[in-house]
C-alpha cells in the first residue's frame, strides 16, 4: 500500500513537468521508482550508464545538457553503480566559468572523489584560482571543495588563500574559511598549528554566524588541551549571557529560542572548561542558572538546550542549586510522553547520578518503565544507566535483567557488549562465588563464543580456589554444585567451545570429588562431548585430560578403573589423530592407567590445581649432564643472539634438509622473553640426543632426524606441530602473561615443584556485599507490587517511609565499610544480631537443588536478594583481612620469572622439539641428570621399561599436564578489591 502511494505520488509529480530537467531523466527516475526488484533496477541503471557513456563524449554538448548528465551520473552512483567513467567530465566542469556549471562540477567531484584520488591534482589549480575570485559565491563553492578534497599534501597549496579569506568582507566566506581551517586541523594538526590563534581572533567577529562557526574548532582544541583555553572562560560566559539575553539579531531565533545551536555549543565548551575547576565553574553558575529558568521546555530545541545545561552542570564543579534545577528538568523529561525526552532524561540521569545518587531514587519507577518500554533505544540507554548505578546491593537484579535482555536480542555487536558488561559487573560486585558461577554459566550459554577466553579462565580459577583456605566445606559444596550444573548442561546441543572447555576442566578436576557421581557416569559424559564436538580439537584435548584425571583419581582411591567401551573407542580413535597434541595426550592417558596407585597420586594429586610450582630457572641440575656432553665432544651452546651467522652455514651443509632448516630458522616462540640462562651451561649435544631418543613412531622419527641434523634448530617440527604449539601457548600462557598480576594457580608450561601459595578467596567481597543488602531487605518486606519490588531492589526502596533505609542502601561504600569495621572488631556476633536468619547456613551454596535457588531466570531476583542476607554465611566469611593483599606481590614475582626459564629450557633441547612444550619443559625442570632419557621415554609407552627413572619423569610430566588446562590469565578486576 505504502509502495503504491509512493509510486502514485511520483507519477503525479512527474506528469507535472520536469523542473527544467529533461524527459529522459524524468523517465529514468520514474522507471527506477517503479522497479519491482533490485535486478530490474540494476538493469535500468546499467542501460542508463550505457547511454551516458555514449552521450557524454559527444562534441558540443549544450551546457544545460552537460549539467544534467553529471547530475545523472551522481544519481547513478548513489544507487550503487560505478560511474567512474564520468569523473573526468565532472573535473572538466569545475574549470567552467559559468557559476552553475562550476558548482555542479564541484558538487559532483566532492561526491565522487576522495582526497587521495589521482584527479585531485587537476582540480587544485582551479581551486586556487577560485579562492581568489571576486564572486564570493565562487569562493564559497571552492571552500566547500577544499573541505572535502584537500589532503595533507595539498594543504600548503591553498593554505595562504584560506587564511587570507578569514578577513574577507562577506561573513559567509569568513565562516567557511574558518571551517576549512578547522578541517585542515583535523586532517593534519601540524600543518596549521601556527594558525590556531586565528580561531581565537575570529571568536570576536562581528557576525554571530562567524562566531558560532569558530566554536566548532575551539571545541575540538579545548577537548585536546583544556588548560590553554582557561582564559577564554569569561569570554564564553559573556557570549552565552548575551545570547540568553536575546542580544543577537532576531534571525537567529529558532522557535522563540535565541540561537539555540550556539548556546548548545557554548554549554559543551563550558562543560569541558569547568570540569574539575572550581574557579572556572564559578563564573558559569549564574548564566547556566539563567538558562535553566529561561528555557522554553515546550519545544524540542528548548529541551535540547536544557539537556545541554544538565550535561554542563554535571560536568563542572558541583553547585547545589544548579543540581537541583537539573534534577527538576530530569523529572520533567522522564514524566514526558515523548520517547525522545525520556531518552534524554535517562541519559541526563546517568550523568547526574555520579554527583547526586539520590536523584535516581526519585525516578525509580520512571526508570523501570523505560526498562520495560518496547523502544529498544530507550531500553539500551536504561541499561547503560543501570550499569552506571550498579552496586553490590542490586547487582543481582541488574545482571539478571541484562542477561534476560541479552538472550532476546540478535544484534551480535550489542550482545558482546552487554555480555562483557554482565561479566564486568559480576566480577566487581558478585555477592557470592556461587552466584558468580551461575551467572557466568548463563552468560556463556547465551552469548556463546562472544565471551572472551579470559572470562573462562577466571571462572575455572574461581571454582578451583573457592572461598579461601578456612572454609573447605563451602569450597567443596561450591565445586559439587558447579559439577552438578555442568553435568546437567553438558547434554545440551551446541554449547560454545569456551564453555565446554570450562565444563571439561571442572568435571575432570572435581567430577567425582564428592562421590555423588560415579566415574563411569562422568567419563561417559566427557566421551559424549568429545564425540559431539569432534571438530573442536581444543575441546577434545580438554576432554581427554579430564578423562585422564578421572581415571587417576579412581586408581588413587583404590577403585578399579572401569573404562567404558565408548571411552575405549575414543581413545583408540584419538591415538591415530592428526593432531599430535591429542595423540600424545591419549598415549599418556594409556600409560598412566597402567601405573599403581602411589605413582598416579604423585603424578596427578587431586585438587592441586591451585598449588604453585617452583622452578629452578638456572637449570643448575643440568650442569653435570652438560659437562658430560662437553667431554664427549659436543659443541657448546651458542646463544641465539650470536647465532645468526651460523644459520646460513647450516643451510649450506644440509641442502637436502632445507625444509627442516627453514623451520630451524623460526625462533618466534622463543624470541619474546630474554633467555635468562647463561650460555655456558647449556651445550647442545646433538649426537647424544639422537642416540637417546627411542623412536617407535615413524612420524616422530622423521622429525627427530631433522632435529638432529640441524644443529641450531630448537624449534623444529612440521608446521602442524607449530600450529598446535600455538594453541597450547594460548591456553597456557604466553610469556607475556607473567607480568600481569594476581594469577595464583595455573600455567602449566612451567614448573614442577608445588609450593603452596595461600590465596584468600573473595570472602571480603562477599561479606561486604551481603552487609550492604541488609537494610534493603528489611524495608522491602511489605511492598507488594512487583514493580515496586524491582524498584526497591534496584534503588533501595520507593515510598517515603522507606526513605531512610533506602538512602543507606545508596551509600554503600560508606555504610558497608562501617559495618565491616564493626565486624572486624567483634566478628560475627554483630551481624547475627542484626538480622533474623531466613534460611539455614548452607543455602547459598546448596548442592542439592541449585536450580531452585540460583537457577537462572526462574527465580525472583528479590528472593535471591533475601537469601543473601543469611547471617551465617557472613559468619563463615569473617575476617575481612588483608591476606590477599600480602600474598599478591609474591605471586606476581614468581610468575614473572617462570616463563622465561621455561622457554629457555625448551630452547636448549632440540632433541625433544618434536613434542609439546609442556612436556619438554617439565622434563627439563625435573631435577635429575638423566632428564633427556626420560623426556623421550615419557611420550612413548613402548619404551617405558628402558628409562632409568621413568616413574619420576612421568609424574612430573603428568603433573604438568594436569596443570595444562588450568586457567592462566588473570583478572585484575575480580580480586582488585581483595588485594587492595
Amino acid at each position, binding site marked *: 500500500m505504502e509502495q503504491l502511494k509512493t509510486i502514485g505520488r*511520483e507519477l503525479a509529480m512527474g506528469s507535472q513537468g520536469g523542473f527544467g530537467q529533461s524527459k529522459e531523466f524524468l523517465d529514468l527516475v520514474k522507471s527506477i521508482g517503479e522497479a519491482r526488484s533490485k535486478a530490474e533496477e540494476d538493469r535500468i541503471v546499467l542501460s542508463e550508464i550505457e547511454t551516458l557513456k555514449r552521450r557524454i563524449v559527444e562534441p558540443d554538448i549544450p551546457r544545460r545538457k552537460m549539467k544534467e548528465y553529471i547530475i545523472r551520473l551522481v544519481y547513478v552512483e548513489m544507487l550503487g553503480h560505478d560511474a567512474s567513467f564520468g569523473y573526468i567530465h565532472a573535473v572538466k566542469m569545475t574549470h567552467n566559468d559559468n557559476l552553475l556549471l562550476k558548482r555542479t562540477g564541484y558538487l559532483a567531484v566532492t561526491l565522487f572523489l576522495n582526497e587521495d584520488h589521482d584527479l585531485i591534482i587537476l582540480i587544485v589549480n582551479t581551486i586556487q584560482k577560485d579562492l581568489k575570485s571576486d564572486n564570493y559565491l565562487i569562493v564559497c563553492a571552492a571552500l566547500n571543495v577544499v573541505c572535502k578534497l584537500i589532503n595533507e599534501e595539498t594543504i600548503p597549496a591553498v593554505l595562504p588563500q584560506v587564511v587570507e579569506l578569514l578577513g574577507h568582507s562577506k561573513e559567509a566566506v569568513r565562516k567557511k574559511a574558518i571551517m576549512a581551517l578547522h578541517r585542515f586541523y583535523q586532517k593534519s594538526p601540524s600543518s596549521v598549528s601556527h594558525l590556531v590563534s586565528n580561531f581565537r581572533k575570529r571568536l570576536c567577529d562581528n557576525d554571530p554566524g562567524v562566531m558560532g562557526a569558530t566554536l566548532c574548532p575551539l571545541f575540538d582544541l579545548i577537548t585536546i588541551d583544556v588548560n590553554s583555553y582557561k582564559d577564554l572562560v569569561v569570554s564564553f560566559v559573556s557570549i552565552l549571557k548575551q545570547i540568553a539575553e536575546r542580544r543577537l539579531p532576531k534571525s537567529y531565533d529558532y522557535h522563540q529560542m535565541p540561537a539555540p545551536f550556539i548556546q548548545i555549543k557554548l554549554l559543551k565548551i563550558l562543560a569541558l572548561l569547568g570540569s574539575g575547576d572550581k574557579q572556572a565553574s564559578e563564573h558559569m553558575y549564574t548564566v547556566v542558572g539563567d538558562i535553566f529558568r529561561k528555557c522554553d521546555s515546550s519545544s524540542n530545541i528548548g529541551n535540547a538546550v536544557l539537556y545541554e545545561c544538565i550535561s554542563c552542570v554535571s560536568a563542572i564543579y558541583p553547585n547545589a542549586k544548579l543540581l537541583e534545577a537539573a534534577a527538576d528538568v530530569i523529572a520533567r523529561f522522564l514524566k514526558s510522553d515523548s520517547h525522545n525526552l525520556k531518552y534524554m532524561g535517562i541519559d541526563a540521569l546517568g550523568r547526574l547520578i555520579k554527583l547526586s545518587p539520590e536523584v535516581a531514587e526519585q525516578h525509580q519507577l520512571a526508570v523501570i518503565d523505560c526498562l520495560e518500554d518496547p523502544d529498544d533505544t530507550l531500553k539500551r540507554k536504561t541499561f547503560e544507566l543501570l550499569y552506571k548505578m550498579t552496586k553490590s546491593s542490586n547487582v543481582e537484579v541488574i545482571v539478571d535483567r541484562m542477561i534476560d535482555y541479552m538472550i532476546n536480542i540478535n544484534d551480535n555487536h550489542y550482545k558482546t557488549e552487554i555480555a562483557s558488561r554482565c561479566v564486568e559487573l559480576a566480577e566487581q560486585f558478585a555477592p557470592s562465588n556461587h552466584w558468580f558461577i551461575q551467572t557466568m554459566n548463563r552468560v556463556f550459554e547465551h552469548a556463546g563464543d562472544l565471551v572472551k577466553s579470559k572470562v573462562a579462565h577466571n571462572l575455572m580459577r574461581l571454582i578451583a580456589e573457592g572461598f579461601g583456605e578456612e572454609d573447605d566445606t563451602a569450597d567443596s559444596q561450591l565445586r559439587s554444585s558447579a559439577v552438578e550444573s555442568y553435568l546437567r548442561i553438558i547434554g545440551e546441543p551446541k554449547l560454545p567451545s569456551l564453555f565446554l572447555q570450562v565444563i571439561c576442566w571442572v568435571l575432570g578436576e572435581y567430577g567425582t570429588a564428592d562421590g555423588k557421581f560415579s566415574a563411569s557416569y562422568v567419563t561417559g559424559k566427557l566421551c559424549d562431548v568429545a564425540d559431539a564436538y569432534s571438530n573442536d580439537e581444543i575441546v577434545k584435548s580438554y576432554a581427554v585430560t579430564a578423562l585422564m584425571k578421572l581415571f587417576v583419581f579412581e586408581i588413587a582411591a583404590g577403585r578399579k578403573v572401569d573404562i567404558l567401551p565408548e571411552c575405549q573407542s575414543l581413545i583408540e580413535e584419538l591415538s591415530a589423530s592428526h593432531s599430535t597434541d591429542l595423540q600424545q595426550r591419549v598415549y599418556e592417558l594409556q600409560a598412566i592407567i597402567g601405573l599403581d596407585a602411589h605413582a598416579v597420586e604423585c603424578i596427578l594429586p587431586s585438587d592441586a590445581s591451585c598449588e604453585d610450582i617452583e622452578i629452578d630457572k638456572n637449570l643448575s641440575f643440568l650442569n653435570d649432564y652438560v659437562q658430560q656432553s662437553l667431554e664427549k665432544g659436543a659443541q657448546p651452546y651458542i646463544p641465539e643472539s650470536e647465532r645468526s651467522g651460523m644459520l646460513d652455514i647450516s643451510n649450506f651443509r644440509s641442502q637436502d634438509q632445507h625444509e627442516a632448516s627453514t623451520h630451524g630458522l623460526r625462533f618466534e616462540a622463543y624470541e619474546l622473553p630474554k633467555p635468562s640462562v647463561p650460555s655456558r651451561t647449556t651445550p647442545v649435544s646433538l649426537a647424544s640426543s639422537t642416540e637417546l631418543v627411542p623412536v617407535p613412531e615413524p612420524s616422530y622419527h622423521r622429525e627427530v632426524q631433522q632435529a638432529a641434523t640441524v644443529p641450531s634448530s630448537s624449534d623444529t617440527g612440521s608446521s602442524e606441530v607449530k600450529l598446535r604449539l600455538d594453541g597450547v601457548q594460548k591456553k597456557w600462557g604466553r610469556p607475556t602473561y607473567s607480568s600481569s598480576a594476581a594469577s595464583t594457580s595455573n600455567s602449566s608450561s612451567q614448573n614442577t615443584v608445588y609450593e603452596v601459595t595461600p590465596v584468600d578467596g573473595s570472602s571480603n567481597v562477599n561479606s561486604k556485599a551481603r552487609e550492604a543488602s541488609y537494610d534493603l531487605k528489611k524495608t522491602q518486606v511489605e511492598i507488594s507490587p512487583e514493580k515496586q519490588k524491582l524498584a526497591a531492589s534496584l534503588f533501595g526502596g520507593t515510598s517515603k517511609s522507606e526513605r531512610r533505609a533506602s538512602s543507606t542502601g545508596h551509600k554503600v561504600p560508606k555504610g558497608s565499610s562501617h559495618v565491616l569495621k564493626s565486624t572486624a572488631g567483634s566478628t560475627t556476633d554483630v551481624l547475627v544480631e542484626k538480622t533474623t536468619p531466613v534460611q539455614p547456613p548452607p543455602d547459598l551454596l546448596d548442592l542439592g537443588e541449585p536450580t531452585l535457588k540460583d537457577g537462572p531466570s526462574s527465580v525472583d531476583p528479590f528472593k535471591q536478594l533475601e537469601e543473601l542476607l543469611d547471617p551465617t554465611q557472613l559468619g563463615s566469611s569473617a575476617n575481612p583481612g588483608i591476606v590477599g593483599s600480602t600474598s599478591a606481590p609474591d605471586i606476581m614475582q614468581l610468575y614473572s620469572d617462570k616463563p622465561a626459564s621455561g622457554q629457555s629450557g625448551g630452547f636448549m633441547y632440540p632433541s625433544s622439539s618434536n613434542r609439546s612444550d609442556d612436556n619438554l619443559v617439565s622434563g627439563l625442570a625435573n631435577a635429575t641428570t638423566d632428564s633427556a632419557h626420560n623426556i623421550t621415554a615419557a611420550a612413548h609407552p613402548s619404551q617405558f621399561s628402558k628409562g632409568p627413572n621413568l616413574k619420576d619423569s612421568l609424574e612430573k610430566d603428568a603433573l604438568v599436564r594436569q596443570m595444562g588446562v588450568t586457567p592462566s590469565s588473570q583478572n585484575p578486576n575480580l580480586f582488585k578489591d581483595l588485594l587492595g
Partner: protein
Amino acid sequence: MIKAVMVINTQGKPRLAKFYDFLTVDKQQELIRSVFGVLCSRAENVSNFMEADSIFGPDSRLVYKHYATLYFVFVFDTCENELAVLDLIQETLDKCFRNVCELDIVFNYSKLHTILDEIVFGGQVLETSSAEIMKAVEEISKLEASSNSITLVPKTVSGWRNR
C-alpha cells in the same frame, strides 16, 4: 561531528546520501542498507534516536525523522546533541521542503546539496539561522539563473519565495 546525512525512501532506495568522510561506493551502499534495515524495523511512536555503534563504529548515534515516504537520517558522534539534530532535520524540512516529496529531492538534487552545504559544512553544523540559509541559497540560485540562459526556478524554491 556529523558523519553522514541520508535520505532514504520507505522502500530502502537512497534519495540523497552525503558522507562527510570519504567512503567507497560499496561501503556507502552497505551503510545505507544497514541503516534502512534498522530503521524499518523500528515501531511507530518510539524515540527518533538510535545508537549506531554496530554500523558506524563506536560512539555513533543516529537521529532520524520519518516524513511521508522518506526517512531523513543524520549520523553523528557524541559531540552533537540528539534533540538539536532532530530539530535541525525538522528545520531543514520545514523551511526548504514544506511539501517535500521524493521527486523534489531527486530533481533538485543539486539544490538540496546546496542547502545542506550551507547548514552542515565539513561535518560541523555551520549555520543555523534559517534566514541566513535562505538568503545564501536564494542568492546562489539567482546567480546561477542569471549566469545561465535557461531559467531554473524549481517549484519548491518558488514555493518558499512566495511564503
